[in-house]
């Protein structure tokens, strides 16, 4: 049986580890709450965008826009949204498994240190590496998407896809590859904003300056919003994955402490029994 002092030291170290993981779990939980609130706070914007988009889309025919132009795909562009830090279970691993096989004709833009490490190490073509803070402000995200849109307009990339961890619920996150550009049609936009089955407003609306101008200016806003909500979802995924991972780490540490304490008590008992035996033997031989 292991010696008492060793067991005591191990118990102490495991307890310390469990304190650290528990603190991380609590931090992740509060960040997750904030990320979910942020996702809800973005709802009015989506609804208003949908309300404006609906009648505008009804008013145009034969609409063309650079974002809707289907080109022959020579180079795919993928934005990979990962985390900066690890300790979030299999989140990044699952995400990277969804990456298409190494191909010279795919260019990557990454958010998060994990993604840029993985992409560059596996020899894929990385064109830009951004970081987005935990508070996920719109200007931060806009910088990324503006860069990607510029690359798309200049023809550096012919498609723009986003690979991210979609937030299903606290226990479930799912890697998802979403084609952002080109937009295949206005109906896709309306569907994505949750407006496919809504009754059209029959009030006569005036458009200033014109329906076409408004629609062509609306599309970039739509693309930016879509991307912003995906990044926010990825952040919520990160924090909930980390919370779950840290919770199981804490539980494991506590189990370990329990079984070590049992070992410790057994060893202590054994030592006491041993001592009594020795005393008894000594007394017996003396009398």
């Amino acid at each position, binding site marked *: 049986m292991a010696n008492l002092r060793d067991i005591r030291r191990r118990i102490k170290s495991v307890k310390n580890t469990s304190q650290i993981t528990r603190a991380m779990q609590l931090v992740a939980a509060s960040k997750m709450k904030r990320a979910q609130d942020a996702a809800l706070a973005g709802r009015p914007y989506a609804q208003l965008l949908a309300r404006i988009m609906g009648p505008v889309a009804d008013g145009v025919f034969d609409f063309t826009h650079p974002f809707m132009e289907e080109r022959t795909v020579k180079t795919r562009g993928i934005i990979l949204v990962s985390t900066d830090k690890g300790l979030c279970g299999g989140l990044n691993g699952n995400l990277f498994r969804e990456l298409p096989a190494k191909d010279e004709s795919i260019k990557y833009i990454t958010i998060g240190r994990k993604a840029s490490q993985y992409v560059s190490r596996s020899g894929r073509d990385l064109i830009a590496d*951004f970081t987005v803070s935990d508070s996920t402000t719109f200007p931060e995200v806009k910088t990324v998407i503006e860069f990607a849109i510029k690359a798309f307009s200049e023809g550096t990339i012919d498609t723009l896809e986003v690979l991210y961890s979609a937030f299903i619920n606290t226990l479930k996150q799912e890697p998802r590859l979403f084609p952002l550009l080109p937009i295949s049609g206005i109906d896709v936009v309306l569907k994505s904003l949750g407006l496919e089955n809504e009754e059209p407003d029959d009030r006569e609306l005036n458009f200033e300056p014109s329906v076409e101008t408004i629609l062509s200016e609306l599309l970039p806003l739509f693309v930016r919003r879509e991307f912003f909500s995906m990044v926010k979802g990825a952040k919520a995924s990160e924090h909930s994955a980390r919370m779950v991972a840290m919770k199981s780490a804490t539980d494991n540490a506590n189990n370990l402490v329990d079984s070590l304490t049992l070992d410790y008590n057994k060893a202590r008992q054994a030592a006491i029994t041993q001592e009594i035996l020795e005393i008894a033997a000594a007394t017996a031989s003396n009398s």
Partner: protein
Amino acid sequence: MSIQLDIVTPEKKVYSETVDSVVLPTTSGDVGILPGHIPLITQIKAGELAISKDGALDLLAVDIGFAEVIGDTVSVLTEAAIDIEDIDLAAAEEAQKRAEQALKDAEGQDIDPDELQALEAKVRFAMVQQLAKKKGK
């Protein structure tokens, strides 16, 4: 008679109040909205919304966006309002530089990325254990 003015950005609803009138900075010039305005959807340029409420005049900064006037409700859709933070142009350049650097660093390393990641995780775990031990003493 009053109108309901809402300003929403992708982050949140930043403004929602009943006001007497509002002047929108549209691309075709400033448009004053009073109660009973005809239904209108218009494009807004970056500028200031002039809001008059109870005789007081308020100015709110908005970025480019759109406004919808229906009934006595004015909804302004914009990507930033009140505290407008410009996007950081230098950030995109830095991102490209970081990408180049990461590719350069990765060159010559002929290791499987998955394996490398597993190794890194092991090292981190060992480090955390060391720290925990030190703290325990």
